């Protein structure tokens, strides 16, 4: 599986006692983007418009959101010219 993932960003090591906490937007986001692969033609505009760089390339060049990073804003579904992305509410 080919993935476009940001390089790991180092944290300040202050006194050696602080650890980078894990960031998980999955716990609090309101909706998640769902891709319709029939409509997607792999242009990548969605991955460019995501402010959190959550969208990664998965099998066969299609795109998907990293569930830990996606904050559920819905910009990607607005940006897609072919309406391939729908936002589905997260069940709590």
């Amino acid at each position, binding site marked *: 599986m080919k993935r*476009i993932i*940001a*390089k790991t*960003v*180092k*944290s*300040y090591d*202050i006194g050696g006692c*602080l650890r*980078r*906490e894990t*960031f998980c937007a999955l716990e609090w*986001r309101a909706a998640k983007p769902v891709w319709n692969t029939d409509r997607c*033609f*792999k*242009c*990548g*505009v969605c*991955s*460019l*418009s*995501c*402010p*959190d*760089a*959550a969208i990664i*390339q998965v099998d066969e060049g299609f795109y998907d959101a*990293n569930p*830990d*990073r996606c*904050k*559920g*804003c*819905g*910009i990607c*579904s*607005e*940006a897609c*010219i072919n309406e391939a992305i729908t*936002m589905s509410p997260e069940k709590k």
Partner: protein
Amino acid sequence: MDRYSVFVPKLLPETELFSPENRSCPGCGQAAAIRIIGKAVEDHRRYPYGISNVEMHTSAFPYKQWELTQAKKPGGTSLKLDAKKIFAMAGESGSFDDGIRMLTEAKKQGKSFIYICLFNEAGIERHREVPLNGYHPDGTKSFIRRLHDMKNLIDRAKAISPDFMATACPSHPFDLVDKVKKTLDCRGISFLAVFVPCPTGCSYDPAQSLNSGRLAVETGFFPLYQIEHGSFRITVSAQSVPRVSEYMKLQPSFVMLSPDEVKKVQDAVDKNTTQ
């Protein structure tokens, strides 16, 4: 689908200098802008970056969301710089004065300095520095004030005549990348004003964030242009959506305006774009 020939992964680098795990709100236009600027900078070792309020905007205290080399360590010791060029990125409020002062100083010393100023859609209303000709008499209409303040700030940067200056918006990412690359290539001082939509500050749906930026550009509220060694060029044609009300409709704080007031705003925008 042959008619779509734009394939983003082939046009822009995969590197991310700005961490995806930043602490900004969902749909933050500022995060989108910084991410795209990071893509344009590409190699962070060549361009040391000064710590600014943008760093605080996106990180919880001890963590760092940047892959950029810092010009100054948090402890206060300056790193030895072999780079000829420094770039600073900051908001439009308190640090604007510092940015302009740095630009003037760099110009005096013949150094290369880039100042990228992020104009927050909501913050611009509450900024503190004094515009060139004070507040507009129509100050109660915050929208017009927003327009004039933004123009005043850009005029102040224009007054020190940078070698390259431009306005940009993350809703037009390729235009933004192009302009950041130009500032990096420019030998003297350069100034870039980036309009960033802020869904939390203006309380609209985060999904509309980049649409808001697009409408601001297309209605002429924030025209995109560049001034390269004195030659002026509009890079994205404004006024393709003629009514500024389209843009104001997005923001709940302006839905109460009467048609007369909307017309007044439209006149102000028209006057701004024709200048």
